[in-house]
């Protein structure tokens, strides 16, 4: 009997407590969901759910607060690091994280993220780099690759007039207060597992009070790239990895011991 068979099944995976049971608004194949799940699993593992406060960005992850079972604030475009600073300064014992896309963090919020890192603000930043503005429908981001077509660079990003894409992990690793700055990718299982480990470290860095921690995650945007989900994952590997090498850009003293 089918029912008997089901009873014998062993539960090997459950939804993390920190992840809410709700319908997703993300497009099919988008890796935001993967990133959300990794963050939620880490929050559960470290037992932080009841003392974590998240700050959502403006962009596709604007509704991040719908998916996490933790207290959440919704910031203005690019200002999440400033908001997180305000929260952390009055509640230093709480765990504060921002979740930001590339338009939010690398363009309009460049000043806020840079100074937050420079101050060594003791927060965790999850940075989604998908080389495009998703929410507004696929415009050029500061992370859009040379020659990449977007709705605001219809002939491809011309680096003569629009400059080269920003490598945020490399840049922020140079900030004096940065304790842990790494780049990972979500394009296959192996890399997702590595990303998960890095996110865990980034929260542990905050727990240990070591300073600013950021995990950049190369992510896919099948809808605005105009690719089927699997092709989009391959596009990360073929096009993003060469320009955005994965690696640890800043691992301050004390982080290794965590």
């Amino acid at each position, binding site marked *: 009997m089918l029912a008997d068979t089901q009873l014998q099944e062993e539960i090997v995976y459950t939804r993390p407590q920190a992840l809410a049971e709700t319908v997703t608004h993300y497009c099919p194949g988008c890796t935001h969901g993967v990133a959300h799940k990794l963050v939620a699993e880490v929050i559960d593992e470290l037992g932080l759910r*009841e003392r974590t406060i998240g700050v959502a960005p403006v962009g596709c992850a604007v509704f991040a607060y719908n998916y996490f079972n933790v207290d959440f604030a919704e910031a203005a475009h690019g200002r999440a690091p*400033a*908001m997180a600073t305000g929260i952390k300064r009055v509640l230093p014992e709480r765990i504060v994280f921002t979740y930001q896309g590339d338009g939010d963090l690398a363009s309009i919020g460049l000043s*806020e993220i840079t100074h937050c890192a420079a101050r060594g603000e003791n927060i965790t930043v999850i940075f989604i780099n998908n080389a495009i503005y998703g929410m507004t429908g696929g415009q050029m981001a500061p992370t859009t690759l040379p020659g990449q077509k977007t709705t605001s660079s219809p002939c491809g990003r011309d680096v003569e007039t629009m400059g080269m894409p920003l490598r945020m992990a490399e840049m922020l690793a140079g900030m004096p207060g940065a304790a842990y700055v790494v780049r990972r990718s979500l394009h296959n299982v192996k890399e997702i597992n590595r990303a998960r480990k890095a996110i865990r470290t980034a929260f542990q860095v905050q727990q240990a009070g070591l300073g600013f921690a950021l995990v950049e995650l190369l992510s896919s945007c099948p809808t605005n790239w105009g690719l089927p989900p699997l092709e989009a994952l391959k596009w990360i590997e073929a096009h993003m990895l060469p320009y955005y090498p994965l690696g640890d850009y800043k691992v301050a003293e004390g982080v290794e011991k965590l």
Partner: protein
Amino acid sequence: MAKQLLKGNEAIAEAAVRAGVQAYFGYPITPQTELLEYMARRMPELGRAFLQAESEVAAINMVYGAACTGRRVMTSSSSPGVSLMMEGLSYIAGSEVPCVLVDVMRGGPGLGNIAPAQGDYYQIVKGGGHGDFRMIVLAPATVQEAIDLTGLAFDLADRYRMVAVVLLDGNVGQLMEPAELPPMRSVLNGGSNGPAPEWALVGAQGRPKRVVSSIYIVPEDEEKFNQRLQAKYAQIAAAEVRYHEYQTEDAELIVVGFGTAGRVAQTAVKQARELGIKAGLHRPITLFPFPEKRLAELADRARGLLVVEMNAGQMLDDVRLAVNGKVPVKFYGRMGGVAPLPDEILEQIKRIAAEFGHTPRHSPVSCLPLDGQPG
């Protein structure tokens, strides 16, 4: 407590400390910098948060974040810096979290200068940010009033879960005069370190998560939220009007001015009385809510009003709306960081009083914009 000789900006800072402010975020800009400097020393002394932000944009968003925790929090700036904060102020209004902003106004537009002015009336009272939001606006004319209104600003911000602004010009911020500070409030009394309010983000311990957001993605929901905001503003308009008056009982000419302009005008009114002119002063202390009912009453009894401001005539709009054409409303303004002298205002009072002398009370008299430029 005894009176001490206090500088406006520093007195406001200490008043905020005594009202239980737990975090200050700011950015240097003249003529409010002493406030930031005072906090840089004082807040760490008390184990409270102080941070000099990288910009006014960051400062107001740090305030926004800290305000989400339910703790008392503030920032201060001056006109161009406040322009930069407008985005954050709109978000704070849209999220209904409380905070206090001190705006020490200077000459503008643009970089302008660092002299006292009142050109921020529109951006503060009418809301320079996007959307239909209001902020409670308190306008002191003396150091003592600046102290008292700072404490009140925190209480009103908490009571109504909104931004309360102490709006002063560089003159009140910079001048020194004897004033008395209130005693240090216990943090519980200040509403700051007690149990967090039921909306505050402090971690979802043993309860469902909370979200502080200004998003209502469904237009009908956003409209409902707006209606709720408007109802709150109407409640404030009914309950929180404050003003100061001098010799208005039998006044035929009501001089209206806020902050420094109102204070200078009071001297002119006193001089006019000595000359036998029945002048009186109405000085709004709350600019939102605006004392429109009181001005309408005064207009019923007076032959005319004279609005005096250190701008091109911004509060003038609200006075005219309140008076609603019942009597002439004239205006005298100095701009660009120039404050009016009592003699200049007295000249205006004398000229208008003479006009009234041979003008029937209800005949239409055109309002003279910016008449009586000094010269």
